[in-house]
């Protein structure tokens, strides 16, 4: 369940002086986590740029397709700067990326950054809307499931969420489109948004994509929340609370919830990170002008600058969300604050 926290917090990447470490264990842990994320970001950028070049398949021949004569390939390589060594190009690419310049698209010869600037906001808006609905709903339902554990509401939630996990995003999306957009005609499809669109229209346009994302991510989050609370419920102090006659809702509220906060934060962040990925498919289904659609189109025509830029941005958001989850969990968990 905790994909990141346990293993990643351990390696001491930034050895702090022992005095500092002893006096500020919390700050040390957080600093370590920040350092690790920075390291990870650099490694990921290398993987996305250099690692991809090591794979078979020549960019220049891909770029030219059928018309790849040796001279044309050589020309294109010089044109795109592919004749320079990989290390030089990586440094150029990364310094450009840090300044918000991702170069030119091979397919449209337009600035990648400009496209991304338009689309990143759209994607984040969609993911944010989904998160605002899904997080409280999932945590609430997870608690209900624990409260009615092994009784009808719990079993119902269990079965429905098991089914929901297995639904592919595009199936949920088209089902919603068929019912709400085609049969009832109550929401617009495709979900077009444009610059300067009034907020209400924009919300109406993203209603179905948001609902799809919520449905997809809700089941995961709910099941993980339930598992997190239940593992807390199995601890001896919960048995004590039960034995001393505390009503179960009070026991959950006073003893289980404070201890379950750290795992729940982890669950939420993991699923928010998952939302970032779910956005890709949902955007394609709803023809929504976001980052995901942009990336998929670029992959189809093998437009590498766009693919690498989108890949780096998606990975960075994912890493940052995981980092925030770990830091929140460190702060919320007294055990981690005083490591032995």
């Amino acid at each position, binding site marked *: 369940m905790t994909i990141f926290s346990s293993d990643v917090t351990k390696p001491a990447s930034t050895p702090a002086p022992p005095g500092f470490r002893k006096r500020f264990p919390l700050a040390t842990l957080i600093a370590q986590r920040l350092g690790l994320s920075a390291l990870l970001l650099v490694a990921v950028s290398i993987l996305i740029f250099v690692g991809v070049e090591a794979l078979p398949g020549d960019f220049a021949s891909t770029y030219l397709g059928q018309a790849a004569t040796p001279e044309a390939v050589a020309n294109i390589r010089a044109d795109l700067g592919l004749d320079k060594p990989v290390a030089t190009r990586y440094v150029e690419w990364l310094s450009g990326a840090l300044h918000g310049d991702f170069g030119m698209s091979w397919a449209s010869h337009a600035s990648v950054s400009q496209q991304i600037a338009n689309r990143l906001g759209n994607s984040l808006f969609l993911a944010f809307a989904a998160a605002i609905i899904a997080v409280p709903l999932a945590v609430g339902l997870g608690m209900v499931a624990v409260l009615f554990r092994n009784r009808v509401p719990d079993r119902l939630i269990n079965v429905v969420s098991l089914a929901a996990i297995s639904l592919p995003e595009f199936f949920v999306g088209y089902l919603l489109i068929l019912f709400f957009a085609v049969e009832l005609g109550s929401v617009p499809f495709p979900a077009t948004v444009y610059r300067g669109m009034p907020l209400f229209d924009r919300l109406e346009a993203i209603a179905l994509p948001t609902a799809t994302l919520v449905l997809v991510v809700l089941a995961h989050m709910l099941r993980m929340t339930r598992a997190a609370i239940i593992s807390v419920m*199995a601890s001896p102090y919960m048995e004590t609370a039960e034995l001393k006659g505390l009503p179960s809702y009070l026991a959950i509220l006073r003893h289980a919830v404070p201890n379950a906060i750290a795992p729940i934060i982890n669950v939420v962040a993991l699923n928010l990170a998952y939302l970032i990925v779910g956005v890709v498919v949902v955007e394609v289904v709803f023809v929504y002008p976001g980052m995901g659609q942009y990336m998929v189109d670029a992959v189809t025509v093998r437009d590498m600058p766009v693919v690498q830029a989108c890949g780096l941005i*998606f990975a960075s958001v994912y890493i940052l969300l995981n980092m925030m989850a770990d830091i929140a969990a460190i702060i919320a968990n007294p055990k981690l604050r005083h490591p032995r």
Partner: protein
Amino acid sequence: MRARDIPPSAWIGIIGITVTAGAAVFAPYVAPYGEREIVGDIWEPMSSTFLLGTDNLGRDLLSRLIYGARTTLAVALAASVLSFSIGITLSFIAAATRGVVDQGLSRLNDLMMSIPTLIFALVLLAVLPQSVWVLILVMAVLDSTRVFRLGRAIALDISVMEFVEAARLRGERTIWIIFREILPNALSPLLAEFGLRFAFSILFLSTLSFLGLGIQPPTADWGGMVKDNKDGIIFAVSAALIPGAAIATLAVCVNLVVDWLLKRTSSLKGGRDDG
């Protein structure tokens, strides 16, 4: 274990998987028409000649669904078997040898897991040549990171037990310890994980095909069929929903079986049953 010890939910799952697998194996005998045969008009409704109607090119949807089961199951199975072989072997080596090898493999694994699977797959597929084998390999390598993490945790638990210690003192080689001491004791939880990975592979393959980056037409494949027929949705033609429902049903069935396996493992360990 007897047949009646299996709960009804698991039976539903087993039956669903068997039916799909049967359809896949006997596709040429079961399917009423050929995989690529154009037999009627575009998007004909369900009728006695075309039980599920026809698709965007006038091919019989039921026949394509049956042949699609072949592709989808075969590719997903190949990918999960391969990812398991890679993940288990590397994780057991890491757990049995420890030290530098373990550190190297684990950090590499952390790095690969820090990029979302779909995004990583998109980046890789943008570069690599388009073929089924490349697709299987990409899916397997990306998925093996999850197997590695679980396999290493399980193997570490087992490798500190007395019988492994005894084997080491006897002077057995690492390969023996991995395959004769650790593997047999890790099978039960790994079986459940295999089911999970398989369900994930089905969904992942379907997603890639839906995005147009997986199985290429005219080969029938469930995700690709959704993509082919998606434009019909606007005209209230539900042809895209049928393969979508097939994917969902199969994934539900696999998950039902996995759920039962997981419960069985936890009750074997004598842990508190967590429903």
